[in-house]
């Protein structure tokens, strides 16, 4: 039998009962649409969260004071942790592969200028802050002095603070009081917006030493190290750990690489996407039962026809393939319909609610279609085998 004739025969039987075929295909379509829609939203969320987390760049390792690992012998010596200092940051600067090092801490303080006052986040940072994180200075610049205890009272403003305290004026060269001390404005940042809920525009940036003094802290909250893109995060982490252990005498700090953090986050989000996809898969199962039902009915209804085909010289295998082909075609067409519905609804949702991130990965679409065909095959096998094994004499007399 030619493949074209095979197609003509299978389509003729399913076009013959259009409504029934449509409804059966719809069962699969809804399942595939659910899978596509849910995974589209899951994947969109995935990309959205990852983009949020990599706002600061991905070649970043953060060193924080204190070891977060629990160790039996360490109980009771918590107070002996050495703080991270500006000298530590300076030492890391000379390590290989390291591009920028930024000592940092943050707190909240009252700002006063032009008779207005405002409480905002105050970041104590190093001179390489804007290049260590991917944040740009709009006008003016950061201080260029080394990060040491004798830092000058200079400040870079976030755009919101600039607007609130110096609206309509050029703030560069003006003075600003932070916690009672006078700071000279030397720069304004570009607007960055909110990152993970923190408004980077409603903030000011001062030298880290000044920050420690302002908040009365003995050490830094973290040291951020950015490294060359062609180097593995593990290598840089190892070098940093070795150097700091040398300085501190033991490992009383924690390193977190952005790359590793993103990997963990990404795998968690992948599991979520997979889980919602599997939920949609349940409705696919219902669709499969629909195909099984319809094909079983078709074999019963067309028993006499099967007998005739056998009498005309059809082999068992040909009868099997005809019914299997019908089941697969039903589910494959249902799958295509489901893809169209799923992607359509996902994109429609995105148009209605632009805040909802949506992304349909082609791999999922291809897998969904493959699943549909497999379901058709699985659901069609039993009825098709029954059709093929019918006794021709009995089948002919079924009316």
């Amino acid at each position: 039998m030619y493949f074209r004739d095979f197609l003509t025969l299978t389509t003729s039987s399913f076009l013959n009962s259009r409504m029934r075929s449509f409804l059966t295909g719809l069962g699969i379509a809804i399942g595939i649409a659910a899978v596509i829609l849910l995974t589209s939203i899951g994947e969109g969320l995935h990309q959205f969260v990852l983009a949020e987390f990599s706002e600061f760049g991905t070649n970043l390792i953060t060193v924080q004071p204190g070891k977060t690992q629990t160790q039996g012998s360490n109980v009771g010596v918590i107070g002996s942790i050495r703080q991270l200092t500006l000298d530590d940051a300076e030492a890391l600067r000379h390590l290989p592969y390291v591009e920028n090092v930024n000592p940092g801490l943050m707190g909240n303080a009252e700002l006063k200028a032009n008779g207005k006052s405002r409480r905002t986040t105050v970041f104590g940072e190093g001179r390489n802050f804007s290049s260590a994180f991917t944040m740009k200075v709009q006008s003016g610049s950061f201080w260029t002095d080394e990060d040491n205890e004798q830092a000058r009272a200079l400040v870079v403003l976030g755009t919101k603070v600039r607007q609130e305290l110096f609206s309509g004026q050029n703030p560069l060269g003006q003075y600003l009081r932070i916690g009672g001390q006078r700071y000279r404005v030397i720069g304004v940042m570009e607007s960055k917006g909110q990152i993970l809920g923190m408004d980077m525009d409603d903030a000011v940036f001062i030298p880290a030493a000044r920050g420690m003094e302002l908040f009365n802290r003995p050490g830094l909250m973290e040291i951020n190290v950015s490294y060359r893109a062609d180097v593995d995060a593990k290598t840089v982490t190892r070098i940093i750990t070795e150097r700091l252990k040398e300085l501190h005498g033991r490992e009383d700090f924690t390193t977190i690489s952005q790359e590793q953090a993103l990997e963990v986050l990404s795998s968690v989000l992948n599991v979520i996407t997979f889980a919602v996809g599997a939920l949609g898969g349940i409705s696919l199962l219902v669709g499969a039962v629909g195909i099984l039902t319809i094909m079983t009915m078709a074999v019963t209804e067309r028993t006499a026809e099967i007998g005739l085909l056998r009498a005309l010289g059809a082999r068992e295998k040909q009868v099997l393939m005809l019914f299997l082909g019908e089941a697969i075609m039903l589910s494959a067409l249902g799958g295509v319909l489901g893809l169209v519905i799923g992607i359509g609804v996902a994109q429609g949702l995105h148009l209605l609610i632009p805040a909802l991130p949506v992304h349909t990965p082609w791999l999922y679409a291809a897998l969904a279609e493959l699943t549909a065909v497999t379901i058709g095959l699985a659901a069609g096998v039993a009825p098709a085998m029954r059709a093929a094994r019918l006794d021709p004499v009995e089948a002919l007399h079924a009316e």
Partner: protein
Amino acid sequence: MIELQNVCRTFTVGDQQVAALRDINLRLDTSEYVSIMGPSGSGKSTLLNLLGLLDRPSSGTYLLDDGNVTDLSDEQQAQVRREKIGFVFQSFHLVPRLTAAQNVELPMILAGIPAEERKARVQVLMQNYGLAARADHRPDQLSGGQRQRVAIARATVMNPSVLLADEPTGNLDRHTGWEVLQLLEGLMERGITLVVVTHDAEIGARARRQIHMLDGRILSDEQHEK
């Protein structure tokens, strides 16, 4: 040419063995016109199914065109049916969703004959059987006589050596029935062995050779000169 040697066919019904055919010996020559008559349960349908390779004898030998077809596999049986045997049924057995021409084409599709050749053969047959104007009609748009003519066209499109007709006029009125029989009888000129199973004595009487069956046995086998 068909030859049956000591053919028996028994069915198992519950725990009982029922003999549908008992020790049948039969030889049908090429271009012979045979009617098989008998009451229901006499074994005539079982005999027809055996001749058509839809069923297998429980014992005995079946030779078709000098080849032993008794112990063929399902696959081989299907091939013999496709190439050598045509069936005509009481209830026509047309596929309702296919047109008359497509129904006639069906055996050739199963046999894998190319489309151009199929079209040509269908056209000739439809013309010969007076169905040219009905080629694109579905079975439910045809009269009973037309349906049976489509079925006969389908049974002969592969040029079989044997044509088996099971009550071919059973669902037709008397006049149409005669027409259909005439069409079948005309096939003998093409060297086809025609076997008609019927319980209608009048129809059976048209055949030159008349076989009567009862209880799975051949009761009489007579040649009538016309």
